[in-house]
């Protein structure tokens, strides 16, 4: 039996998907701006963030409305509450794309410190994780969500690699490199945080589909 409520859930679902796509675009453009030293591109990411913030509020309001009017239960309840959490995570991820863009603006007029190798690698991991997490949400795919959760340690390792290199090979040897090295270090940190938020999304998807709480219980992942 198709319920009127299902139509409203579909609208909510499309909005969350739109939020996911806008967030993915923001990360992609911020990294492109870094790679291409593109001031305009970085500014565009910063400007677009208002639209993402607006959509976040719209989604939140819809979720609260649905809870108040329909008192959802079981799968419906898990979908709506997870939707609210994913919405908040996506908004934070988009903010981190803004942070990356701001770092880009800080270094874009300065000479290149070093060729970028590990940061683009880290950005690929981050972007793949976000894409897979949103796919897992769309397809209710628990296996894909688990893969996302497991990818996070790889991101942590790369972030540490970038951090050690920038500190030991540049800043420790020549403190004058700090104005160019610190923004890169922060970008690696922002990307790693994107991966953390994405891990939360994947954990939420697992809860939404199976009702199983993975968060803070990594042993559950194996089951």
């Amino acid at each position, binding site marked *: *039996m198709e319920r009127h409520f299902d139509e409203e859930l579909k609208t909510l679902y499309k909005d969350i998907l739109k939020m996911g796509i806008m967030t993915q675009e923001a990360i992609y453009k911020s990294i492109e701006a870094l790679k291409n030293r593109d001031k305009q591109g970085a500014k565009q990411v910063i400007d677009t963030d208002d639209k993402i913030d607006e959509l976040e509020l719209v989604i939140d309001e819809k979720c609260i409305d649905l809870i108040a009017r329909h008192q959802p239960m*079981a799968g*419906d*309840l898990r979908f709506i509450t997870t939707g609210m959490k994913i919405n908040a995570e996506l908004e934070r991820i988009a903010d981190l794309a803004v942070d990356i863009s701001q770092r880009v603006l800080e270094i874009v007029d300065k000479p290149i410190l070093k060729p970028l190798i590990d940061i683009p690698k880290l950005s690929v991991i981050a972007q793949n994780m976000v894409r897979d997490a949103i796919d897992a949400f769309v397809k209710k795919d628990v296996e894909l969500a688990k893969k996302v959760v497991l990818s996070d340690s790889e991101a942590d390792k790369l972030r540490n690699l970038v951090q050690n290199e920038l500190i030991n090979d540049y800043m420790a040897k020549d403190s004058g490199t700090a104005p160019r090295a610190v923004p890169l270090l922060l970008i690696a940190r922002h990307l790693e945080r994107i991966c953390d938020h994405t891990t939360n999304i994947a954990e939420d998807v697992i809860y939404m589909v199976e*009702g199983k709480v993975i968060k803070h219980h990594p042993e559950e992942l194996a089951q």
Partner: protein
Amino acid sequence: MAKIVTKNLNLWYGGFHALKDINSSFEANRITAIIGPSGCGKSTMLRVFNRMNDLIEGVRTNGEVLIDDTNILNSHTDLVALRKKVGMVFQRPNPFPLSIYENIVFGEKIHAERISRDRLDEIVEKSLKDVLLWDELKDRLNAPALRLSLEQKQRLCIARLIAVKPDLLLMDEPCSTLDPQATAKVEELMRELKNKYTIIIVTHNMQQAARVSDDTGFMLLGELIEFGNTDTIFTTPKDKRTEDYITGKYG
């Protein structure tokens, strides 16, 4: 601790198989809600627990219903004692056309041979206090019970049950005729009462089951499909039929 245990409980109304192999365990001092669509057998199951179905012609039951480890389906069960121990609240409050006072002492007068006026006064006060009606009604105990509001009548009926010191309270849609405010009061009362009694409530109101109960059983076509902690049933039910029913997709 299990207050009621059913083992392979079956019940037929003539040729109609109304309860099919019900195995369940109702814990003491908890509120258990039984939910399910109309005709699924939930009220029938409730009425098994105080043998109310015996009043219906052509009813056949087999299996076991253990209340405090005693099978109440035995032919030698004392039905008066059973119904004193297992009280029932109905959909429409049904006070007797007597005074408030007489309603409450009615059961005690039947069950006890001689009882002093002081003792009856005590019972009335205690029972009304238990259902949070004492302050409202203490100055008009001789007023006709039929003049009370619906919600007061329902609480009075609960007080009437409590007066004979039951262990178990069965409630069949106790709030279906009440407005939301009155419903909230009865639900609050249920939460108070569960410290002393084991409560089983049959309700069509899913939100009520979710709000008030500790455990929930879902019935469909005479079968107990799923039984468990209310939090789990309403957030992560295991059976798709439970999920479909509580999310309104059933039918």
